[in-house]
């Protein structure tokens, strides 16, 4: 039986790491991308791991060049993300810019690159993990930018509803 091909982006920690473990446990063929690829470690079932900062467009292209032979993926999970917490006016704007560049720009650049290269299988799944939108009620937590992910999904879902067999399915999971 053909093994399910899985690509996990942001695989070295948190949800991404857990997804890698689960996919490997069910004998999927797993590829990983992370800025700190050494932290992914040796996991049975992981066939390729590539270092990549997803806020860097060139690094994305290089990483996908390396993984192209493993494509198309049945499941792509983008779990990469960083945060900046504290009173807004006390956070360095450069750090906040970095959060946006990874969480927003990086997600969109990676999504666009995967689609352009047809690296997601027909009827495959693209999953973006995010925080709960309800976190908006918390002060001093700039995860409030998370609605971005839901709107990206909502927009792409609308756009792809006309041709569901040609493109992948997209969903955002809040954890």
């Amino acid at each position, binding site marked *: 039986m053909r093994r399910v091909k899985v690509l996990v982006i942001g695989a070295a920690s948190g949800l991404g790491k857990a997804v890698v473990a689960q996919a490997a446990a069910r004998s999927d063929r797993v590829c990983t991308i992370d800025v700190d690829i050494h932290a992914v470690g040796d996991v049975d079932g992981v066939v390729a791991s590539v270092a990549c900062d997803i806020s860097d467009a060139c690094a994305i292209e290089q990483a996908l060049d390396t993984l192209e032979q493993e494509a198309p993926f049945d499941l792509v999970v983008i779990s990469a993300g960083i945060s900046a917490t504290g009173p807004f006016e006390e956070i360095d*704007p450069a750090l*906040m810019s970095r959060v946006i*560049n990874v969480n927003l720009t990086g997600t969109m650049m990676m999504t666009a690159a995967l*689609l*352009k290269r047809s690296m997601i299988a027909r009827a495959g799944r693209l999953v973006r993990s995010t925080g709960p939108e309800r976190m*908006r009620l918390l*002060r001093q937590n*700039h995860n409030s930018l998370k609605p*971005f992910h839901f*709107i990206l999904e909502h927009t792409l879902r609308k756009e792809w509803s006309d041709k569901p067999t040609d493109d992948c399915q997209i969903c955002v999971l809040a954890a």
Partner: protein
Amino acid sequence: MTDPRRHARSYLVTGASSGIGLEIVRLLADRKHSVVATGRRDASGLPAHFPDVPYLSADMADAAQRHQLLLQLPPELDRAILCCGAGFYRSISQETAADIQRIVEVNVVAAIHLAHGLFPRLRECRGRLGLVGSVARRGTARMPVYAASKAALHGLARSLSIEWSGIVDVKVLDPGPTATGMSVAAGRPADWLNRLMLSPAAVAHGIIETLEEGGTFSRTISYVHVARRKLFGCAA
């Protein structure tokens, strides 16, 4: 409702060289408010009807230019209306990495940078910060990057309105489709919607007035909003 003509205030308006931003500057200047305007164009490229107010040229996609702008602003500001925006009408697989980076930088990162830099001035006078969003933030097919960036702006406003409650009033003001020419420049094909678009002047008026109101941090400047103002003199 507060009559904005009653008190002269000091304003910063970004994205002021065209579209809604330009109309906001013209309205504020008519009402004798003190305005500092900024836009990407050089001053020599401003339209003939641009009012006689200070204009600082700055590209909001450039962090160094934003930093320089903040240094040049007057020490006291009552209001800041951040109007600058960028976007394309195309699917995500047609977007280039450079365009995605620019759209997010202009629509989100610049707002964060300026909100951060303007906070001391706005706090000093219990001021107001208006972030001009878009109804596209609810999700619009074939504008995924623009829509998502405006959703992020909405999240930022929500967060700041809570965090700065009682210190600086923060609102995100979402215009409906507006006849600014941006949709044409973005590549959206002209259709029946173009004939129904709101005028930039009506939207500018709505933004200035709504920023002075109480209530929720998120407001839509729509056909209904503009019509109710005309009929009853206030928003719903």
